């Protein structure tokens, strides 16, 4: 089979089970590489290497395009209503299954820093679950959600619609550091 190169992102297709499994692994790998490089970019900027920071940021974006391509072939991109449902399902799993289990292990092993990282994430996923649920209901009536800023705590990921609180209720970071979307 020759290798097709076309200037459109790859499309969904019926996949053999082995190909599907490995493509899922590749999506996981690209996603983690992208996130690692974003963290490394921030570190390079802190180390006084702005051009290396830019390289990491650009390559993180390249990995995002690969993650998107793999997800597309896997049929993981639906209508926005479907995507909201998928997102809601993912957040629900993290809140009810994943993080409680991980926190129990970290508590057993006295891993206080790991517990902090888990607590920050779980608290934010609760915000996300509620936001996705409310939004899905709006979309089912064919409407967009209301316009307005969304703000995210740069430390713990706490997510609010509208103005930032004076202090993050999860980690105590001052609201002035919240990133606005």
């Amino acid at each position: 089979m020759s290798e097709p190169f076309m200037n459109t992102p790859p499309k969904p297709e019926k996949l053999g089970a082995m190909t599907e499994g490995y493509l899922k692994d590749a999506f996981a790998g690209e996603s983690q590489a992208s996130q690692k490089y974003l963290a490394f970019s921030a570190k390079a900027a802190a180390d006084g290497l702005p051009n290396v920071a830019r390289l990491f940021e650009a390559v993180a974006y390249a990995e995002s395009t690969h993650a998107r391509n793999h997800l597309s072939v896997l049929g993981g991109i639906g209508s926005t209503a479907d995507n909201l449902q998928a997102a809601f399902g993912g957040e629900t799993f993290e809140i009810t299954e994943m993080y409680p289990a991980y926190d129990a292990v970290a508590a057993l092993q006295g891993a206080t820093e790991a517990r902090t990282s888990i607590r920050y994430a779980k608290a934010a996923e609760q915000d996300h679950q509620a936001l996705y649920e409310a939004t899905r209901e709006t979309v089912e009536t064919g409407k967009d959600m209301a316009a307005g800023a969304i703000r995210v705590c740069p430390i713990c990921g706490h997510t609010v619609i509208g103005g930032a609180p004076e202090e993050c209720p999860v980690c105590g970071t001052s609201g002035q550091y919240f990133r606005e979307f």
Partner: protein
Amino acid sequence: MADDVFEKKLPAPAELNPMTDESLRAAFAGESQAAEKYLVFAEQAEEDGFPNIARLFRAISFAETRHARNHLRTMGGINRTADNLQTAYEGESFEVDEMYPAYREIARTQKNREALRSMSYAMKAEVDHKRMYSDARERALKGDDIADQPVSVCLICGHTVIGDVPDKCPVCAAGAKYYRAFD
């Protein structure tokens, strides 16, 4: 930004028992995939005519990025830049030398053309990334930054180029206007 404020609030790198380490690794994988998925969902929401939902997906993607960073930091995965470049180089090498060649053979055997295309796009870009990280690491070890030049990325296939953008992407043939510049 107020680095000292951040330093105190962020979870710190810690000695972890294997089971906790494994949990955090899995959580890092989960957060990373959620962050990427939500970016794609944001694009789809724009296309579907829901700009406010697109904003929601982008904001929550950023929140997941914070969680991924926190988990990675706690596992001791963020080090000085020369070491981070080495880690990045090794990751790209694994993908180029092991992962994608094996995955591509499977996709070929199963005649999954789109999967093969998606993997080939990625593998070709990782070859460039590997070289760029290797060069940057040599410089960082001497205490030097790399040259101050834009880095551009093909938004179809991820082809990455330092300096001038080609007229046509050498991997997927997309035109120059499909490159996103980081300058």
